[in-house]
């Protein structure tokens, strides 16, 4: 549960506490942003802009007791909004370019010693993910990678829990290779 004194210090502009907040939450924002575009610079830019906005708007943050970690959800919300705005400016890279970036930055092939057949499977999964709309992709990443609950994702995306879960079901249908069979 979030401590009220911690929030109070953040609102007072305490930089030590703000730095702690950044250390705790920047990796997840980076990971989330990276998974949306597989671009390291894009992910860094999102982290930077998100925490600047967190700093500027912390006074307006209100604890939502329905969520386990309302501060985390709020930070994700800011990041998601920024990502959505920024993605509109960019053309989607093609499957090959995005896959190359994914391999480069996740080292999945090196770390797991995956052979050629397996890498083809990963590539197929990746292409299916790349074809998802930005909203579905964000939901996929928040649910499966960031492991947020449907309630938390609903708060971030300003939708109902039911809508989020329906979307997850549809994602399962679209990501056949990932959900039916995997390495």
């Amino acid at each position, binding site marked *: 549960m979030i401590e009220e004194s911690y929030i109070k210090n953040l609102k007072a502009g305490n930089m030590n506490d703000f730095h702690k907040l950044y250390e705790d939450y920047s990796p997840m924002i980076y990971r989330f942003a990276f998974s949306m575009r597989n671009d390291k610079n894009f992910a860094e830019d999102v*982290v930077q802009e998100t925490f600047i906005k967190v700093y500027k708007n912390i006074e307006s943050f209100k604890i939502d007791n329905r969520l386990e970690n309302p501060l985390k959800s709020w930070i994700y919300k800011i990041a998601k909004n920024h990502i959505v705005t920024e993605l509109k400016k960019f053309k989607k890279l093609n499957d090959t370019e995005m896959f190359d970036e994914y391999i480069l930055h996740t080292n999945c092939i090196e770390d797991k010693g995956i052979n050629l057949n397996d890498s083809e499977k990963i590539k197929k999964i990746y292409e299916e993910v790349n074809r998802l709309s930005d909203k579905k992709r964000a939901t996929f990443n928040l649910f499966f990678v960031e492991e947020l609950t449907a309630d938390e994702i609903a708060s971030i995306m300003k939708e109902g829990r039911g809508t989020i879960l329906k979307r997850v079901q549809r994602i399962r249908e679209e990501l056949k290779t990932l959900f039916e069979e*995997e390495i």
Partner: protein
Amino acid sequence: MSYKDEKQLLDSKRDSLYINSLKGVEFSQKDKDKVWEKIVAETNKEKNIKHNMFLNFRMAIAVAILLIAITTFTIINTIFNQSTINQNIITLKTGGEVLKIEQVEIERVEVANLKEVFFLDNGKINVSVTPSKEKKHIEIKTVDASIVVKGTIFNVNKDNNGTKVDVIRGKVEVFPFGKGRDSYILEKDMSITIEPFNIWLEKVKSEGVEAYKNQNYSVAEKKLIIYNMNEYSYDIVSILARVSEQKNDYKEAIKYYNIIVERSSGVKKETALLASALLEERVGNIKRTISIFEEYLQNYPDGVFSSEIENRLKKLKNSKK
């Protein structure tokens, strides 16, 4: 779906190589620290505004501004219903709000635009506005900025170094001149000195170019678009074209090369013509490509790229047959 089913769905993919590989994406401490420095720099700017930090600068834009003078005050007298003068205090009444102007150091002010916009050429004015039911738009303008009254007391001080605004009570919004510049809302005890346009613009340019060199294309594009809104520079438009190409936004890149074609001459123009033709070809506009090549050869028969373009044109026309 119940909460139990939700958990089961999540657990079902815990062994997923793909998902676990994304979970393993690392934000290295080096990159974390690099981004943190940028955040601190930006948040310090916010703090400086709030703690009355002085920013040095000059300004260049907008029309000249004048100050209050006894002679102009006579004009004001006839325009307003009631006006009084008491030593250095000139009280203007406009539409129910009383605008008291004190401590005037320079003599002339010219009243314009429904008597709601006051120009300050040089010197200091203290503005005290009594709130009324009908909020009127009251504005003090200098060459550096427009300061819009939102029910407050504030000082505007214009000298050779720039325009400083101090808020004593209430709230004002300051609009620095220059496209793409943020405005600032100042409250009690806040002040700001507006950076001169040319210094701000130069900063925007150098930050954009630096970001481009560091391959931080989204930041570079943001900054350089703002620069381009205010001033044309061949180097900057070239960078914007290349950033667009990086993003595979060829139509945007073509737009930038066309700007260079319009505004440049010599080799720069020739290069831009060739680049735009190649991009038109990439997006499938063959007709347009041929037209640009033909235009090039007509204007630059002995140009830098004329033999290459002749060959490309021949190939294009043959493939069309």
